[in-house]
């Protein structure tokens, strides 16, 4: 949208870009019969603008609200980070949760789980899914049907309430969504003639079986497939932390294969350090590199093994932010990219870029850098101590919130197009990314139930 810089009488002599935009919109729309739809990024910042009454009557409600500046103080982060209201990063704390109305009625296991999601204690697609199934099974076990209600519907309501609470703490991952779908499917097929205790035990048993089959056994089979692709003398590159890639490497080491690992890490999570620790505990030779050095290190690598948070039906792989860059660099250097992902992380949707479905992290995490000597000394001089976990606040970004045109965007995931991926290793074997819809079709829950 082009900003036309004309002066509207009554305005201050040097209007800000926002007010210029507003005025241009107002003038354009004053005579137009159809409302002009303005994307949320460009709506007013809750200022003093008031449209003429004649103009507002013909405008669409969202536009009118924007013009009148009704209670719309969009923060910097909101404006720049995808623009939609309600998607800005909101930190979750114990006090806030207890004060909210769900905090009073949700099961304590779910409450504790939500808080652990929010503070990052439980990270990782598999871990979150397993933890959620664990908490929901406890909800089921502690559930008592109120008199006059049916178990199926009421328990469904309780589970929905728990899931809504978890979503507020942290948006659901694809694996969690699939687990909930399976649980609801099992719940809907509960035999109504069963007693409550038997039904609950049956349901918990079904979920245990689901976990066993989809996660534990799938992991085992997947590891076998993947280990067959690890040869002696390999240099395997991996990015950040992936539970299943770790298991593959440990299993290959146990089988006596001789290879070394290059762990590439990316800010702000720096999960690669944890990967390094676990690999070193198993005496696997490792090196550590940062994402910015990937093009230099790619030469010596023989294959790239990545984990995934989800694989979508057009073959796009969602992973930790930075993994797409790794895959692209590997594809450019003609190195094979193996994505190890169990089938319960597959999803039927199609995603073409990283922005449409993503998750926002704490923007302050980007402003903190690892505390090495000069940064730590500078920060100590400023009075902000270095926190070994989070690092030290970078002096260049110290006042970033006060700067009106600067926002920090901390995305959690990114999307790797299918053309960079050589093979997706699942428990059903090693498939090309284009075969993901086949797996989804053949081995989905409803297919298996029939």
């Amino acid at each position, binding site marked *: 949208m082009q900003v036309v810089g004309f002066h509207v009488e009554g305005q201050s002599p040097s209007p800000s870009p926002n007010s210029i935009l507003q005025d241009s919109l107002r003038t354009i729309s004053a005579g137009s019969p159809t409302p002009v739809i303005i994307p949320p990024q460009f709506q007013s910042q809750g200022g003093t603008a008031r449209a003429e009454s004649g103009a507002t009557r013909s405008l669409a409600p969202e536009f009118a609200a924007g013009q009148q500046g009704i209670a719309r103080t969009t923060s910097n982060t909101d404006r720049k980070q995808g623009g939609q209201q309600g998607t800005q990063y909101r930190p979750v704390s114990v006090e806030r949760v207890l004060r909210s109305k769900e905090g009073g009625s949700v099961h*304590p296991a779910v409450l504790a789980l939500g808080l652990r999601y929010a503070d990052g204690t439980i990270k990782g697609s598999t871990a979150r899914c397993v933890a959620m199934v664990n908490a929901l099974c406890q909800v089921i076990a502690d559930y008592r049907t109120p008199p006059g209600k049916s178990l199926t519907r009421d328990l469904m309501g309780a589970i929905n309430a728990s899931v809504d609470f978890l979503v507020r703490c942290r948006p659901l991952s694809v694996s969690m969504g699939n687990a909930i779908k399976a649980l609801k499917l099992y719940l809907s097929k509960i035999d109504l003639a069963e007693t409550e205790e038997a039904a609950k035990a049956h349901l918990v048993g079904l979920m245990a079986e689901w976990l066993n089959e989809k996660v534990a056994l799938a992991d085992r089979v997947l590891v076998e497939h993947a280990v067959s692709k690890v040869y002696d003398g390999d240099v395997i590159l991996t990015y950040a932390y992936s539970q299943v890639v*770790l298991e593959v490497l440990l299993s290959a080491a146990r089988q006596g294969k001789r290879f070394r690992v290059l762990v590439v890490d990316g800010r702000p999570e720096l999960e690669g350090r944890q990967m390094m620790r676990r690999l070193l505990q198993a005496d696997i030779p490792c090196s550590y590199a940062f994402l910015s050095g990937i093009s230099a290190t790619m030469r010596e690598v023989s294959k790239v093994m990545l984990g995934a948070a989800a694989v979508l039906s057009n073959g796009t792989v969602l992973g930790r932010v930075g993994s797409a860059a790794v895959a692209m660099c590997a594809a450019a250097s003609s190195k094979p990219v193996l994505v190890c992902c169990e089938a319960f992380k597959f999803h039927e949707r199609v995603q073409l870029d990283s922005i449409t479905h993503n998750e926002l992290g704490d923007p302050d995490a980007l402003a903190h850098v690892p505390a090495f000597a000069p940064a730590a000394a500078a920060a100590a001089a400023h009075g902000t101590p270095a926190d*070994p976990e989070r690092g030290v606040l970078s002096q260049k970004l110290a006042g970033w919130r006060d700067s009106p045109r600067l926002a920090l965007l901390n995305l959690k995931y990114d999307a790797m197009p299918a053309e960079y991926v050589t093979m997706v290793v699942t428990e059903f074997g090693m498939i090309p990314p284009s075969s993901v819809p086949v797996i989804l079709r053949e081995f989905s829950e409803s297919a298996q139930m029939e």
Partner: protein
Amino acid sequence: MPGQDFQVVILAGGECKRLYPLTSAGTVKAMLPVGGRPLISYPLRNLAEAGIKSCIVVAIGEAVSSSMASYLAAQEAAGGVSCNVITVPEECGTADALRLVAGQVSAESLVVASGDILTDLPLRALVATHQITGALATVLVGKRKTSPTAETKPGKAPKGVDYLGLDPSRQLLLFAASSPEVLRDIQLPLAAVQAVGSVTLHSDLQDQHLYVLSRSVLKLLVAKPALSSLKLDFIPWLTRHQLKHSQPAAAAAAGGFAGRASAGGAAAGGATGSSFLLLSRQHSGGSFGSLTSAGSLTAAGMPAAAADGGDGSSGAAAGSGTGNSSAAAAGSGGAAGGQGSKAAAAAAAGSNDGDGEGRGAAAQPPMPGDGFMALSHSGSAAASSRAGRVGVYLVPEGHYCARVNTVQAYGDVNREVAAADTALHLTGMSVSKYDNVVPPSVSLGTKATVGPWCIVGEDCVIGDKSSVKRTVMGRNCKLGANVKLISCVLMDGVSIADGSHVQNSIICSGAAVQERCTLKDCQVGPGFVVAQASEHKAETLAKT
């Protein structure tokens, strides 16, 4: 429901010698006026705001309980917190007093607060954090207002400093040492450092004497009669011994911190993630069973399991409320950061309770996916998880927390309570348009001024041309003409005659200052009469 099942014990103290002369002539510390209200009213108000209906108040000595009795009854009748006052003998320290009261505590967590804390901290959030993280105990810690070396000669060790050793994430308390006297050397056990990797020893943090203790800690306290003071003896002892009890490979220690080494070992070995196939409740499950006992707060005497049944929690969980804790004691050895030690703490409670539940060796049925912590990406979180350890709760930004334990603190807190930007909201009063609190019954003389951040009591008389700045005055005070009061605290019934200048002093009830005196940094005891035209600086004037 975390944040629900707890009881509160307020230690109203005894006749405090440190606050001489404020506490002479029959005034006890709990009834000292701060901002016009008795000191004990502030913790009670905090409880009332958190929705707590009853608490136990421990008075050391008959004098304290009789002074407080009428006030407590009045505030309870007016809809405040109902207080069960327990009197303990006079030589008791804080830990001794708590030991005597321990039998009356039946809730899962116990909040022990000193009666001189002024805070607006949300208590439920603190207790919920304690319960959710499965901590052994949680200590409220706030920043010191002044540097420890502010009043010390260079080269000498400071007095009255708390030395707290925290882990890097500031969640665990690994070491505590404090003394009202000078501490010349402190010994930090190496095991504390090795357990966490690095320990930061803080002297800029203060233990605010508000502790959340789990049942097992109470049992430990009862078992150790040698520890007399909570802050000086028990908390340092607990921080030293928390490590002994949370070792994963440790055999079942006396006192109920049972950790089955094999289960712990299996958990540690399952770091690669296939361990959750072992569907045993190794990690998180155990503690939540006990959390479903959302017992009421006035559950004195009602066993927690009965509260379970009353709440309609599952029948399976009712027995498991205490029963799962004994089986989930296995989980307490979880090295990968489960909070099974909380369950172990509950196990100690359950096993020592003797409440007659048919527990036996009934294990809580294992839930699928119990081993999820081993799959999580953030292994470092396990190192600073509070499960089974002494945790630290830093006073969050924007909240006020202060203790009135010295004469200097009394003066400072009074002035902060008078200021709307720090602590006036704790009193429930609101300022006039001149930023002070002056009730209409006060009579001001001509050209008398009352500056901002003052609280003037009812029925005071301020003479002509007097100026009152940053002062808290009690009821029925009389100021003559040309009196200057700066940064003072006056209790009830004080009279200051014409021409006196009083600065930075505390004048107790019934005292009188005669004409043309100058007092600076003094404390005047109750009923004392300062002779006219005398000058005093930094003195304590009291009837002996």
